[in-house]
């Protein structure tokens, strides 16, 4: 089994994910709640133009 269950200041495993709508590159817009029925993998990353 993977190591899981690291929490943040506001979230822990089992919580409902906060909904959001954000603009995305290529003129798109993403609303989390519109992705119900799919699994979603979110990668927050520090900044563009830095080694990732």
């Amino acid at each position, binding site marked *: 089994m993977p190591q899981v269950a690291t929490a943040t200041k506001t979230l822990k495993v089992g919580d409902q994910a906060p909904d959001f709508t954000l603009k995305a590159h290529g003129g798109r817009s993403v609303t989390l709640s519109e992705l119900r029925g799919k699994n979603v*993998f979110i990668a927050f990353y520090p900044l563009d133009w830095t080694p990732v």
Partner: protein
Amino acid sequence: MPSYEDDLSRFEEHNAQVLGISVDSIPSHDAWQKSIGGISYPLCSDFYPHGAVAESYGVLRPEGMTERALFVIDRDGVVRFIDVHPIDKQPDNEEIFDVLRTLRE
């Protein structure tokens, strides 16, 4: 972020949508993804109000950028995995696929 692009077909096998989020602007995202060979999944801009989504996920750093933080959210919108990583380290994708394998597609 390019490593997620490389593994995109594997994410699709798990019915998983990949999203990247940083506090950069859309013009920055557009130019940066081009410079690294193209990213097809959405790079989302948490630019204004600055870092508001990152704040709600508890991953906004005091200096204004986000943690390197990974979340897996299931098809019902429930958080199933959280990994806040050292900012200079790139996580291993296999860990994410291990989690996705435990979820319904």
